[in-house]
């Protein structure tokens, strides 16, 4: 195993920027599928911080939560993409600006 020399803040910086890019993507993209991908990106950034803190404290509980986040992400993607498909079947579009039926 490589003896670590980098402190945790570099990894946290990477995770922060990844989260920011994902959040910006959710805000500026109008394609529902790409919005979903950006949400995955943000979940991964959170996972990276969990792994970093697990490494920093020498405590493996963070890895458990990474695993649980992966399970939640898989469930979210399965249901979310099913919703996208059924919405596309009804509305013939996945542009989130045009999907305003629940807008009231």
């Amino acid at each position, binding site marked *: 195993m490589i003896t*670590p020399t980098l402190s945790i803040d570099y990894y946290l910086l990477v995770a922060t920027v*990844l989260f920011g890019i994902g959040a910006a*993507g959710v805000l500026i993209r109008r394609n529902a599928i790409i919005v979903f991908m950006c949400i995955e990106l943000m979940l991964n950034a959170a996972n*990276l911080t969990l792994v970093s803190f697990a490494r920093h*404290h020498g405590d493996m*509980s963070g*890895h458990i939560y*990474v695993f649980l986040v992966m399970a939640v992400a898989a469930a979210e993607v399965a249901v979310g993409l099913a919703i*996208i498909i059924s919405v596309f079947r009804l509305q013939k579009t996945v542009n989130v600006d045009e999907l305003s039926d629940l807008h009231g």
Partner: protein
Amino acid sequence: MRVNLEIILFCFFAALSWASALGVVCSKDPVKSALNLVGCFFCIACLYLLQAAELMAVLEVLVYAGAIMVLFVFVIMLVEQRDETILPQSTLSQVGFFVKIAAVLLVTLNLCVVILRNSFTGTGATLPVGFGGPQATGQLFFSNYVFHFELASVLLVVAIVGAVVISQNKTTEDEESTTA
């Protein structure tokens, strides 16, 4: 700080993950976005490896880059794409849009500053033997976190059933009316 293999690998994968994350957001073709996202997941898996989280790195590639991205690509195939301008003119003219983007960037920058100011000195705890391996993870899962583990399995079952129900074709009544 000595320049060694770890720092070189870290810089390489960090830069590559940022680049492919930007590729996800900026490419017009959803397939290119998906491929960029796979690249990003690989880079994140390598960053996990650098932090001695071997099992999580393997799972990242298997679950995210494997299973989830295949699902994404299937949906991209099923859903007909229209040309999408990344920044539509109607949205660009709205002030609220810029406020949102500015807020995101501000929060990101603030977090960076906070992180770098209260920087965690030192290189962390010394790791026990087998840290991040399958055996240690499994022992944790079946001792302290057994409830979480079972809950995750229930969640996945519910999600599978939900996905099947939601993505089903029209209801049986419609089928009967079409056949009759």
